[in-house]
């Protein structure tokens, strides 16, 4: 089996487990829906222009529900010592990281793909002609969130107060991704040209590359026994 096949085996294992339990996806999706609904109550859309706050609400929904999924990601491996099993398989540790990371990325992207239409309905925003640029931003932003998120998820599952520690570790680190994603989503929703957000996208891309490499290299230190 070559390296990519090994990575794919881990991704496929997570997808199959998820199809059977539906635990991660359902909790993430319902939570993001709840965030969108709660924000509708806390901000009166009759008084506030939806375009002033929509991009922020969308990314709060994504990050908060993303945390739920990441928290679960390694918890399942911890139960029944699945992580031990993974580590005993004759594959490189970095392949485990990439597999888990891609799995988390896929779950979050599916959750977002369903949350965006609901968001459009609740906030009454038109996105028909902006779907592609919006998808690029969401993909890059989510990738940045998940690269570090998977690394920290493997870390927090081994310490006390794990559910609390993951957001405390992750949120300060992903501040640049959140700022850049919110700014560029806002620019897209208000109909600004694509050139306006290029520099933000480059920033997220730099973040993605830097932390993909760092996580890739340092993952073996995290799950070492």
């Amino acid at each position: 089996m070559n390296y990519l096949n090994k990575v794919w085996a881990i991704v496929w294992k997570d997808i199959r487990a998820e199809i059977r339990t539906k635990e991660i996806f359902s909790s993430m999706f319902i939570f993001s829906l709840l965030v969108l609904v709660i924000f509708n109550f806390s901000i009166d859309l009759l008084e506030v222009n939806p375009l002033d706050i929509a991009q922020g609400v969308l990314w709060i929904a994504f990050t908060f529900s993303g945390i739920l999924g990441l928290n679960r990601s390694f918890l399942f491996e911890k139960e029944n010592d699945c992580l031990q099993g993974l580590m005993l398989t004759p594959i490189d540790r970095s392949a485990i990281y990439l597999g888990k990371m891609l799995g988390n990325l896929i779950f979050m992207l599916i959750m977002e793909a369903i949350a965006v239409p609901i968001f459009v309905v609740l906030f009454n925003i038109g996105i028909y002609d902006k779907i592609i640029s919006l998808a690029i931003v969401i993909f890059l932003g989510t990738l940045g969130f998940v690269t570090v998120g998977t690394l920290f998820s493997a870390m927090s599952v081994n310490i006390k107060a794990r559910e609390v520690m993951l957001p405390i570790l992750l949120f300060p680190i992903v501040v640049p991704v959140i700022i850049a994603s919110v700014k560029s989503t806002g620019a897209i929703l208000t109909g600004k040209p694509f050139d306006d957000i290029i520099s933000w996208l480059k920033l997220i891309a730099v973040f993605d590359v830097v932390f993909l490499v760092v996580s890739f290299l340092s993952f073996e230190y995290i799950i070492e026994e």
Partner: protein
Amino acid sequence: MIFKWLTFIVVNAALIFIFMIAPIERQEGIVQKIMYFHIPSAWVAFFAFFVVFVASILYLWKKEREWDIIAHSAAEVGIIFCSLVLITGPIWAKPIWGVWWTWDARLTLTLVLWLIYVAYLMLRFHASEGSQRARFAAVLGIVGFLDVPIVHFSVLWWRTIHPKPKVLSMESPGSGLESVMLITLIMSLIAFTLIFFLLLGQRISLEKMRDELNEIKRRTFHSS
């Protein structure tokens, strides 16, 4: 011991410069003297986090407890100075800018830094003692520091109204400050750097004593 006395003398000399020799700034008045504490604290905080970064890399490479202790100690001392920056900043900003806090780039960066390293210390607190804690902390120490330039650019493009750093202007270094003020600032920078190394040394020896104590306890319990 000599180092302690040296620090004591330099700190006192810096205080004399700050409060007796340096002139009172014409526009900002007495409030400007906070800068002699604010800027050195910021420098020490950044430097301390850089020490965490280097010690973290060395720990993952060499796996020696020594580097873990240094990283931990530097993070603790760094958080103290980072807190000082966040406290002295608003005291200065209220009379000068008219607000305690504003989401300016440098303020935001310092706050994010503070949050990253508070998370670092919380991670150390919650993880169970041993090599696993050291490895987790080292990874966070590296990730956190590599994040600094990216956070910097993101908050810079976001918004900024911070006064341009006067001393570090490119055209002619030091042109923005009166020479006595510049000397005072440099004195203060040296004093704070010495305080940093003094505290770091104390914290490291404290941690080593703790290790030694645990070792003695372990041996005593096993032999009895």
